[in-house]
């Protein structure tokens, strides 16, 4: 069996390439990485900047990756991946993957410049943003991908401010605007969709980008056994969109016949528990506006 092409549960290898790490119980990020590595296989170079995943899997001498792996500087994931790829190419290496796993802050905030440069160069690298919607590693601070209304330690919810005020940067549109060859969003709540997309990214001859929603039980405040459920609910209520950007067009991958309740999704999480009705209405209105635009402009 060609492990690199296995993109569904039945074909997926039992070999672990990320194993024995120290992540929290119910960690969505480690699940995203573990699954992606099963698709990418043993001939993979991994670079991970400062984030939960580097913190829990690189502590010498207990290294949790069985493949080649390194911690990249926080702002530099895209540039380090380019360097690995250029070095491997110049040395004549064949049949390998170069992948980065950066968090939401490492991608949309401090790492956006290096990501932009990498896409512009078109080096054959896979950039995965595992999005848990805040700086979880440092103790749940607001990032550029923290959604409106979310309570974090730097966007506390009180009488004056209802948590995070930002609207969450649209990274899929940002990377698409570079003319990237392949980009996608995914959720660990829909693992087969995610595996297929990792497989497509690996086949793509140039820079590819995948942003996978990775719920964080610790930071979001839900029971640890609910991680995958949360990843599914986010999609089903329409707040997280499964899509691809390919052949110069956006493609909607999943269109729920009827959205599940946004309020129910939000109420399950401590980070949103303070929201009042008008704030929830605002979130729903934003969702509807986004979907109207998608249904009008994207292939679906």
């Amino acid at each position: 069996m060609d492990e690199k092409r296995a993109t569904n549960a039945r074909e997926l290898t039992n070999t672990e390439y990320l194993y024995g790490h120290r992540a929290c119980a119910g960690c969505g990020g480690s699940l995203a990485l573990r699954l992606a590595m099963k698709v990418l296989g043993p001939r993979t170079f991994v670079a991970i900047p400062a984030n939960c995943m580097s913190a829990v899997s690189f502590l010498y001498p207990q290294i949790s990756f069985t493949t080649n792996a390194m911690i990249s500087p926080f702002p530099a994931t895209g540039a380090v991946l380019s360097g690995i790829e250029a070095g491997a190419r110049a040395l004549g290496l064949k049949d390998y993957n170069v992948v980065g796993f950066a968090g939401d802050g490492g991608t949309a905030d401090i790492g956006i410049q290096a990501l932009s440069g990498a896409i512009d160069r078109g080096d054959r690298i896979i950039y995965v943003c595992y999005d848990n919607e805040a700086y979880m590693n440092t103790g749940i601070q607001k990032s550029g991908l923290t959604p409106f209304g979310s309570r974090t330690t730097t966007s506390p919810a009180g009488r004056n401010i209802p948590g995070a005020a930002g609207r969450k940067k649209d990274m899929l549109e940002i990377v698409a605007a570079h003319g990237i060859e392949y980009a996608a969003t995914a959720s660990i709540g829909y693992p087969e969709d995610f595996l297929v997309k990792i497989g497509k990214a690996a086949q793509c001859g140039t820079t590819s980008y995948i942003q996978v929603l990775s719920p964080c039980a610790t930071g979001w405040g839900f029971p640890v056994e609910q991680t995958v459920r949360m990843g599914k609910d986010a999609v089903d209520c329409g707040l997280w969109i499964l899509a691809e950007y390919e052949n110069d067009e956006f493609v909607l991958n999943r269109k729920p016949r009827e959205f599940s309740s946004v309020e129910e999704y939000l109420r399950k999480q401590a980070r949103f528990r303070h929201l009042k009705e008008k704030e929830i209405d605002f979130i729903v209105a934003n969702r509807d506006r986004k979907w109207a635009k998608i249904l009008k402009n994207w292939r679906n």
Partner: protein
Amino acid sequence: MRPMPGCRIFVSGDEAVAEAVRLARPHVISAYPITPQTVVVEKISEFVEDGSLQAEYLHVESEHSAMSAALGAAAVGARTFTATSSQGLLYMAELLPYVSGARFPVVMMNANRTLATPWALLSDHRDSLSQIDSGWIQVYCEDAQEALDMIIQAYRIAEDPRVMAPIMVNLDGFLLTHTYEMVDLPGQEEVDGFLPPYRTENKMALDDPKTVCYAAMDEYMEFHMKQELDMRKAPAVIAEIDREFGERFGRTYHGMVEQYRCEDADVVLVTLGTVTGTARVVVDDMRKEGHRVGLAKLRFVRPFPRQEMMEIAGRVKAMGVVDKDLSIGYEGIVFTNVNSSVCDLASPPPRINFIGGLGGRNISKQHIRSMFNQLIEMAGGESRDRIQFVNVGCEHNG
């Protein structure tokens, strides 16, 4: 000198560096343009385009990414080159201890230029000397020939398994980077004979996967002790490689410190970079007039040549240190380093720190003659201000 199949060329310091990089055959070049380094990266781009250098040239979007890409390439065992200057060096500062801690032998050219603000384009050493604690070897060049030769030597030193440290090769901006001189250009075969392909176990490899740039909370200090112990071996390796270079190419640079007419000198001036060339002329002039003056050209600032400095200081009656930098609130950075070496002598000679050249302010032959005159007077028992500012337009108290 042996007959060489190379040739003599008329080039600037930047072009000499680019020629040397071509001869050193790096796999990956990643660089971001900044004046006065730009000619280096333009020239290398031309070499890659015309095929005279088979390498990957990465157009990165910042100096931070330039060094990050070099890090990634070095992490798979590729030979790398980058170049920067001034603000660019400081923008990549996060990466300097990162690369040295990972023991990757990245070679970087730095065109010495001052730091903003106020903005200025011309040369002093504030950029590179602010980074002496970063775990990089730092060498300073006097002329274009030395710049070319040191790029080639730098790869041998950095990649030596006894050293395994990155090197910053410094050229004074404009004074050296943009000044044209005749330079001996070695042939490719000769350089290949001196500089074999880079081989290392310290890399990620498909047939032997490993982790690099990991975290080491409990062992951190041991890792850095190893780095320090290896850096202490560097002076002997530098001298050895310089000797071999001399045998092959007919030019040597006297290891860590070049002593010019120091044998019987009463007073010695310590210099760094291109001001050395001016000071040589002054030494020759004053020697003709009967003054026993000498020059210690400090080539390497890290590792610091403590023994050589002590040995020179032990023989003279007064010592001056020219600093084209200033650690504001104290003194010149080179002066601090020289002092910490010579203060261990039973009776160190009196010393003056001449601070000048900031932002490219000229240091003329007359200024250097004045420095020597003060040192001679101090050697005769007179006292002088410890810190002196050279060719400066505002009043100051000693």
